[in-house]
């Protein structure tokens, strides 16, 4: 079991990992927008566009809050991801990650949703509530295949520790080769987890005015932009750790996570949006089936 | 092939009486006839009881001085018992007749079905389950279908 040599190393990790995640996440956001633009034969935003957006949102002169819970919702949404980011192993910094494990992490990933849901709830905006109702339903949809995948992987590695899984993969073979079906199902779940097209019914801009974000202004929206970049980062690193053997060094790590996140991004704009129940249906059908067959192979 | 003994005839008679009585009690609707069937039934049973002490060659069970030892006597105990049973039976029949008279007076019918329906209705009215207003035309089935 990995541990830290000193308190300073721990503090360094605590500080460094969220910052790293944020920066990488910003690049991923840019990448997402660029891919979308290119697929639509546009030029797309400039390189620093994500930074401009966040700076602009944080520098708004006026912004509204519907109450303390509204504020806390954003705090939890961002903070939950910060905590989750800390529990994800990156090359050379897996000391804290070892305290968590995959089950804990899966639960940590639900905390931001719940926090944000609470915040949106206090806005008393029906569009927001509808959005949350859809978002939670979507969570129900993608979490079941995701959890099955997690189960299969943990069963395969006989461990719930992400660090242990990475060690195993680096010693033997990548998980994607040992468990191709689970990896495919995981990719499916990942698509849902990122909350982008085609599974973004819960924001549905033209219908419910971006749902949960309807009352988010200024730094509230900024917080959500920060959260989004964390979200891309977490999804890609998690998938990399489970199936692609993590990263032995930084170069490999970055390569893998950008490769992973590129796949769902590319798929995103190829499909129209799914309705909530259709999303649930498709998520409970194909990835679950794949994952269960995958588990059968694992056992 | 020997002739069947006289007991067989007696037994057949007794059991026949019982069967007729039973059939009567079962099938007859008129209360008075039902009582008559009951009388038949009792007669059959009494006969059966007497037969249990009957000896084909037996004599009356009276100990006389000239009575030859070893001669079969009919058993006196059942006869005594049957006497008692008949007395009781008559008593009960008398009681039943009295009841039938009073019922006829009240319900103006001797049909067991009708008596039962009126009785059920009366009981229901008495326990407050059915209102007495409908007493004039008791519905078949009384209150139980409530």
């Amino acid at each position: 079991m990995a541990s830290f040599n000193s308190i300073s190393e721990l503090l360094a990790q605590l500080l460094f990992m969220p910052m790293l995640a944020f920066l990488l996440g910003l690049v991923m956001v840019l990448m997402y927008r660029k891919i979308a633009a290119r697929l639509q034969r546009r030029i797309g935003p400039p390189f620093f566009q994500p930074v401009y957006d966040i700076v602009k949102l944080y520098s708004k002169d006026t912004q509204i809050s519907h109450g303390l819970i509204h504020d806390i919702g954003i705090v939890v949404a961002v903070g939950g991801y910060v905590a989750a980011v800390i529990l994800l192993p990156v090359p050379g910094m897996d000391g804290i990650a070892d305290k968590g494990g995959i089950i804990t992490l899966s639960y940590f990933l639900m905390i931001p949703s719940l926090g944000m849901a609470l915040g949106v709830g206090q806005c008393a905006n029906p569009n927001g509530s509808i959005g949350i109702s859809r978002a939670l339903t979507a969570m129900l949809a993608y979490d079941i295949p995701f959890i099955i995948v997690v189960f299969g992987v943990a069963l395969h590695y006989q461990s719930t520790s992400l660090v242990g899984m990475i060690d195993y993969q680096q010693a033997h073979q990548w998980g994607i080769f040992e468990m191709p079906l689970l990896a495919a199902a995981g990719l499916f779940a990942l698509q849902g987890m990122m909350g982008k097209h085609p599974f973004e019914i819960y924001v549905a801009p033209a219908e419910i005015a971006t749902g949960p974000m309807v009352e988010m202004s200024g730094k509230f929206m900024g917080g959500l932009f920060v959260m989004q970049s964390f979200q891309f980062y977490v999804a890609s690193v998690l998938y990399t750790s489970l199936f692609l053997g993590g990263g032995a060094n930084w170069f490999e790590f970055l390569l893998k996570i950008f490769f992973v996140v590129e796949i769902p991004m590319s798929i995103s704009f190829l499909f129209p949006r799914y309705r909530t129940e259709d999303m649930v249906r498709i998520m409970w059908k194909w990835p679950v089936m794949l994952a269960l067959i995958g588990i059968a192979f694992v056992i | 092939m020997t002739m069947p003994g006289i007991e067989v005839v007696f037994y057949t008679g007794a059991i026949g009486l019982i069967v007729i009585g039973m059939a009567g009690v079962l099938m007859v609707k008129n209360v008075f006839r039902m009582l008559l069937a009951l009388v038949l039934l009792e007669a059959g049973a009494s006969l059966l009881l007497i037969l249990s002490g009957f000896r084909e060659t037996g004599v009356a069970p009276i100990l006389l001085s000239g009575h030859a030892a070893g001669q079969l006597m009919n058993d006196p105990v059942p006869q005594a018992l049957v006497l008692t049973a008949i007395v009781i039976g008559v008593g009960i029949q008398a009681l039943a007749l009295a009841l039938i008279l009073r019922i006829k007076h009240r319900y103006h019918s001797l049909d067991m079905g009708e008596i039962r329906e009126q009785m059920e209705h009366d009981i229901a009215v008495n326990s407050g389950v059915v209102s007495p207003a409908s007493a004039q035309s008791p519905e078949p089935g009384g209150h139980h279908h409530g």
Partner: protein
Amino acid sequence: MSVLDEVFILCALGALVLFVFHRIRGIEKLAVVFYAALLYLLIKMSGLGYGGEVIYSSFSLNILGETLQWRFDAVSWFFAIITVASGLFSAVFMSGKWGESYREKTSNAAYGTLQIALLLNVNSMLILLASGDLLSLFIGWELVSWASFMMMALNPDKQARQAAIKYIVYAMAGAMAFLAAMAYVYGITGSLQYAELAQASAALSNGQIILLSLLFFTGFAIKMGLIPFHLWQAVAYAETPAPGAVFLGAISARMGLYAIIVVLIQLIGLGHLQQIHIPFTFWNLQTVLAWVGALTTIIPTYIALKQNDARHLLAWHGVGQGGYMLLGLMTLNSLGSAGGLLHVFNYATYQAALFMTIGAVIYRTGTANFDKLGGLVTQMPLTFMVMVFSIIGLAGLPPMNGFVSKWMVYRSLLLDGEPLLFVAAVIGTLGTILSVYKLVHNTFLGQLRVEHQNVREAPLSLLIPMLVLAAIMFVTGMMPGLVLDWVASAQLAMGLVPVTYNLGGIVLASGGLDMIWITLILFYGLGVGAIIFYLLGGRAKRVHQYDNYAGGHFLTSRVRYHYSHNFYAGLMHLIGGWYRGSFKKLEQAIVSLVSLLSQLSENMYRSAQPAMMVIIVVVLSLWSISGGIN
């Protein structure tokens, strides 16, 4: 005289005093003192929670050649301390303002009756937990049913009364199954002692064990509200007056779990559960029971999702959470069973707190109907906070204690390689998250109604127990080792391998759990989030709830725009078809069958010819005798 004797004497005294003085004002203080004293006595026995010796009562009874005795072991103590603590919290809850308003609404006598009902519940549960043989277990069992019935029957509402009747019929059915099993045991062993059964069960045939387990399990499952006997519980608990719901919800149904532990695990034995295969299937008893648990996590949870009344929603969750406990227990390994037991404790804390918050909401607003609530967070912030803590626990998210026990259950299912059970448990958890959000959203978030604009925070007497419970939830969530001590002792007493743990959680070679770290990391993350939020960016102005984007629509107090009805409409499009009420129909079918038979019997009793039956039976029996002899 042992401590257990003191407990019983105190119980008897308490019941007596309360019964005599129940009309007097101030009786509630006495009741609180009573529960506190009871808790003190239990704490005196706390050696049991740390591997102490079994404590016997010096009172015993000889009847039918059986010795009835009462004792406390680690399992009983574990359940007892939860019971008494729940009693104490309910008593405190009802001792202040809530009690006054209840008095005003009903009468002194009714309030006193509620107190008596609570006390009888606690007492009867202690008797049940202390039972030392099957007969005393059954006696305790019946007493508990009675006491709960009394509690449930106190609500004058029609629905509540129907629920109470339904409960008692179910409870009687369960008791009768238990009685049958007990009689069967007596038929086999000629004794009702635990030890005899434990010995004899080794020699029993598979069929006998299956029959016995089935009978016992039916009895216990009814109390616990497991599938397919789940219909009675939620309505009955929900419709009980608030402190009663707190108590019943927190612990009452867990008596079924205790009995399952005692009879199925301790007496019939682990080996049997694992080895005996159900004929014509691949399943053994353990799998069947585990699946009952898994289905119980799913079905009632999704019924809860559809409820439109906060109390009913919670009560349905109570049924569902029972499934986790059974599921954990039925893994029969050290980790899972510890998880199941720990869940009993954790569940009691947050379910009690949740019912209290709803009680407080009802106290202030007079309703728990989702369509009539909303936006109370500004009015009742502390109550809201307790509810959030509790729903985090109920949903099993870190850092509350509910997470620890669920983690243990999941982890042990993982270790055992039970994918389907695992998935079932996860489906249950996700359903719980959906439904608790609905709960908190529809009561505390969203639009505040005009008529609730002057609602105030719950009074202190209601808040204190809630806040203490919230604190317990958090502390035992962060340091589950505090409770795991007791759980490990209970596991030892059950004959299982105790779980390896430390203060922060579970120690496992292949990935353990350290809640202290996890909590700290979470709080670090939240701290970073707070810094980002509060230090960067400008001030935010609080705005009125009508200052809200509604597509350019002008919102006023005349417009109701709280989204609460059919909250998960999308999901319901998909799964709505599954709410067929199959179990309800089954229940109705049984009632119809009984009704039909009853009508047939009645018609038989109404034959026109009085002597018909005599003759028919004579003929029949003579015919069968002659046939039988030949």
